């Protein structure tokens, strides 16, 4: 078995085969992947990370494909992480996004990876954030995350993006209202896709009303509502311009730094929690001893915990 550290250099050179392998190591939390990520994290930080979320069928994958085409026409490289739910019953999954994205099939400047929610061993959010690090370190200019905006894990993932677009479509009724409401806080841009269909302007009006009620404070980014027809590319170049404007705005207003720090805080906490909890389980001698002492009332839980974590 190839060790993660053997391919770090090839990942840094942006070689697709190595990047693909590293993403598998990240997803499986293979031995040695932490050391590889330590190197990769130091090389990352220059990609623009976009998050696209919204209900199934709203055209996210089609939009990702159209955006990728646009960025490629500007000579920029694109990495896509498309997250799809796994079957609760078998743990298997059919990852459909390749169909919508296959027209980039033989362009080495577009790297597409399908991620099943259960493939990440329950640690979807962390695996996805590490996957972003891999693509970023490989020199990818634009990383696009596609998720179905439902569970907390997906919301965590999408929060790692610098620019989050929430995609809706005309005439999908109350479900979409609920999804939009749930994702309102994370949206930097609202996209009404399938604008070729009836009712697009009504959806725009509804969103505008919802945003108006959400009490923006002065000095905040003014969340735009943007219409696209992903299927034929209409509005896609403008949408990319909106994403770029958002990144510029964040940089100017210190928001980019704030988000990066928030993201760093989340990641440090996740890992720290894991490091600590890994020592706090039956079978670890010190923990078993603490269990004995607390059960026999010779010490108390807080004192035992303090001693175990060294504070």
């Amino acid at each position, binding site marked *: *078995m190839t060790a993660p550290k053997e391919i770090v250099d090839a990942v840094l050179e942006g*070689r*697709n*085969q190595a*990047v*693909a*392998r590293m*993403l*598998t190591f990240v997803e*499986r*939390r293979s031995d040695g992947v932490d050391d590889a990520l330590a190197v990769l994290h130091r090389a990352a930080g220059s990609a623009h990370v976009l998050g696209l979320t919204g209900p199934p069928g709203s055209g996210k994958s089609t939009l990702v494909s159209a955006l990728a085409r646009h960025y490629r026409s500007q000579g920029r490289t694109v990495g896509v992480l498309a997250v799809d739910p*796994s*079957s609760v*019953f*078998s*743990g*298997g*999954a*059919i*990852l*459909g996004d*390749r*169909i919508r994205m*296959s027209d980039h*099939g*033989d362009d*080495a400047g577009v*790297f*597409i*990876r*399908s991620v*099943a929610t*259960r*493939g990440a*061993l*329950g640690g979807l959010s962390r695996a996805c954030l590490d996957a972003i690090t891999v693509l970023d370190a490989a020199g990818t200019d634009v990383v696009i995350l596609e998720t179905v905006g439902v569970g907390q894990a997906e919301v965590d993932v999408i929060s790692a993006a610098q620019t989050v677009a929430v995609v809706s479509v005309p005439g999908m009724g109350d479900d979409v209202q609920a999804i939009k409401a749930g994702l309102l806080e994370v949206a930097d841009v609202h996209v009404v896709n399938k604008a070729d269909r009836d009712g697009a302007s009504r959806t725009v009006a509804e969103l505008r009303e919802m945003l108006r009620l959400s009490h923006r404070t002065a000095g905040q980014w003014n969340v735009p509502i943007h219409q696209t027809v992903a299927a034929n590319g209409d509005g896609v170049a403008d949408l990319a311009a909106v994403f770029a404007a958002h990144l510029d705005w964040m940089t100017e207003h210190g928001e980019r730094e704030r988000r990066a720090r928030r993201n760093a805080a989340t990641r440090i906490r996740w890992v720290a929690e894991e490091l600590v909890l890994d020592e706090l389980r039956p079978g670890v001698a010190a923990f078993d001893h603490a269990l004995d002492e607390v059960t026999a009332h010779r010490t108390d839980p807080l004192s035992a915990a303090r001693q175990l974590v060294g504070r």
Partner: protein
Amino acid sequence: MDTREEPIRVMLAKIGLDGHDRGVKVVARTLRDAGMEVIYTGLHRSPEQVLDAAVQEDVDVLGVSLLSGAHMPIFTRIFQLIDEMPERPRFAIIAGGVMPDEDVDALTAMGVSAVLGQDTAPDTIVERIRDVSAPVREA
């Protein structure tokens, strides 16, 4: 570390003119229900597109389904492209569809790990994919 078995990742591809994918979609569901992660490429892909996608997705098994009768030139092209790659991809390749015995031998000689005829039972497909993926996943 979780001890759960990692799902086998399979790409199912349709290459060339053959416009039928009802069968391949049924196979996709069968494999999913057997706990595998399946990535379907859609119809009318080129060998180049399929190989690139399989590398990026880092699959264990690439299954190419062909009903058009063009399997010999297409697989010849696939292995020619693989020879040109800087590094041999790790996935096993299987062929699905209708083909005469002598072609099965020729495909095997080229490097195809298994040939599954059109009437292969779902359980057998699952079993064969598990078989061919085992050595790949250890490597």
